[in-house]
């Protein structure tokens, strides 16, 4: 399937040859459309970038939007570092939030992916009894929506996972069991690993886990990387479940929760829009940087398996 899609892509330059005979007029129209939309997307970033470097004094006294900060000031950034109302042990809540987001995202994403990958490997390369029944059940499970948001609250409350340090568990533990959808997604890629290689490894005395981690996993790296990036981005940006379970535990706040709490404090105090913009910009920066470095994997990852050859 993927090879067909790729060969179709390879035919493209030939096809493109005839398409490149576009008239100058239509070329200009295409560029106009592309640039207009690009401007619409860049505009909000530009606004908060400008405001983040403006002094609060200039923001408060100006009757028009300040397009050119005078002086260019780091006041907004300084406020976040020094006067954050939600500081934990003197550290700005954005930094604590970033650190929390990292471990609260990486643990479930990596753990869940390992289980899903091992399950896909078991389905693809072992004829264990009951395999077909399990696989059918797995496909069925995939089509049933997973509960999200407030549905699980009463359950987690009953087992004591909504107060104190345990309130981070609803965000982590359920994902450590892997997911039917991910298994199904990985399965065809693991299946395409040559069985001969695995048989040779078995003869060399390698076991279930070492074959997976030393042969199958490296050979199907792109699919694992794609799944990792999905999980990481959605974990990094996750706000609602952090709000439901972690709102009262300041030291466990994730980045998005810390950002929203900081902004609602700032807008309540009236003024210091520069700090609000600086905080928003800083919270987005890590993911945008990551995207710049591995954008190829992002774009290939989300289309992976979605186009029928």
């Amino acid at each position, binding site marked *: 399937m993927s090879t067909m899609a790729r060969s179709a*892509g390879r035919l493209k330059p030939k096809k493109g040859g005839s398409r490149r005979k576009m008239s100058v007029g239509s070329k200009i129209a295409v560029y106009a459309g592309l640039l207009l939309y690009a401007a619409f997307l860049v505009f909000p970033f530009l606004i908060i970038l400008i405001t983040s470097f403006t002094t609060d004094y200039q923001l408060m006294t100006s009757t028009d*939007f300040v397009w050119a900060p005078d002086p260019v000031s780091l006041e907004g950034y300084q406020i976040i570092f020094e006067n954050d109302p939600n500081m934990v042990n003197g550290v700005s809540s954005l930094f604590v939030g970033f650190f929390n987001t990292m471990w609260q995202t990486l643990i479930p994403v990596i753990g869940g992916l390992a289980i899903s990958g091992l399950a896909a490997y078991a389905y693809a390369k*072992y004829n*264990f009894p009951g395999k077909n029944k399990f696989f059918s059940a797995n496909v069925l499970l995939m089509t049933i929506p997973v509960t999200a948001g407030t549905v699980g609250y009463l359950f987690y409350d009953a087992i004591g996972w909504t107060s104190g340090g345990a309130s981070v568990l609803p965000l982590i533990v359920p994902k450590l069991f892997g997911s039917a959808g991910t298994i199904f997604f990985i399965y065809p890629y693991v299946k395409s690993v040559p069985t001969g290689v695995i048989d040779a490894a078995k003869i060399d005395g390698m076991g279930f886990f070492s074959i997976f981690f030393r042969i199958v996993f490296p050979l199907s790296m792109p699919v694992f990387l794609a799944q990792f990036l999905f999980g990481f981005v959605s974990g990094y940006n996750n706000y*609602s479940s952090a709000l439901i379970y972690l709102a009262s535990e300041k030291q466990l706040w994730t980045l998005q929760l810390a*950002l929203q709490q900081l902004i609602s404090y700032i807008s309540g105090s009236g003024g210091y829009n520069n700090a609000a913009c600086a905080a928003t910009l800083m919270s987005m920066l890590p993911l945008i940087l990551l995207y710049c470095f591995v954008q190829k994997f992002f774009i290939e990852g989300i289309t992976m398996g979605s186009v029928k050859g």
Partner: protein
Amino acid sequence: MVTETARTGAQTTEVREPAPSAKKPKFRREWAWCWLVVALPFIGYVIFNIVPVVISVAAMFTDIEHNQISTMQWNNFAHFVTFFHDAKYWHALGITLWLTCAQFLSLLIALAMATLINTQVRGSKFFQILYFVPYICSTVAVSIMWSQIFSGSEAGVLNSLLGTEINWIGDANWLTWCIFIVILWPAPGYGIVMFTAAFKGIDPCLYEAAEIDGANAWQRYIRITLPQIAPMTLFLALAGWMSGMGTFDQVRVLAPITWTGTAGVDDMGLTVAYYTYVEGITFSNMDYASVLNWVTAIITMAGSFLFLKWRKKTEENIE
């Protein structure tokens, strides 16, 4: 049956029956590991999905004090009686459906931009990369960014550009529009990438045949491109429908609960997910919130079902 269900997913995979061996294979140690890793997702599903769902369903028929399950008590469908007189839910559903239109509109934008990218003018690859950036930005950050633009002061960006002095977010006539834009802005990023991939998946022979038959570029687009990508369009519409029905982050940031207890002015920022959250978590009425949750779930699933049926039809047309 297996492939039948699999077709509804993003891809099709076949399960081959193992060759029936003459002698029963001996037990192997690896099988234990296989069973373990294969069973774990099911165990997780039972504990963290089925049990919470059972509790949530039971909660609909009971009174629970302070969200403590031990206080559960049968209440003769009192919550359902309340629900049928709950105009607030239907108001919230109206807002949610209206905001879901932003998801569908974003598909049109995505299709238009993917078409432009597909002309493969120089630099089109760069634009594709740029267009995906808003999609990876968090909904919270995007909401805050736009709230700067919609700032109600005379030095706010929009007021400054238009020369007006409107409190966009604080005005009941404008609030829902503001949220609409905030949802619309990042949404096409995903669709653009998916449509671009779908364009590449179309068999070039179809275009060549049409060209020989004398079809112009516009006819080729309408008669070949659009029908060929119809399954992708419906997949994206389904994804848009599901995320639209769950709209929460943007309204929580842009329409915080006011001192009168409304979500933004006149509840104009109240979506069904937001209403459920406020009822269940803020006011600790998880029993009633469960009713809201399940009504929303049923509406969402009914809509999804229609999209899936429609998608299957378009796939049959292509074949």
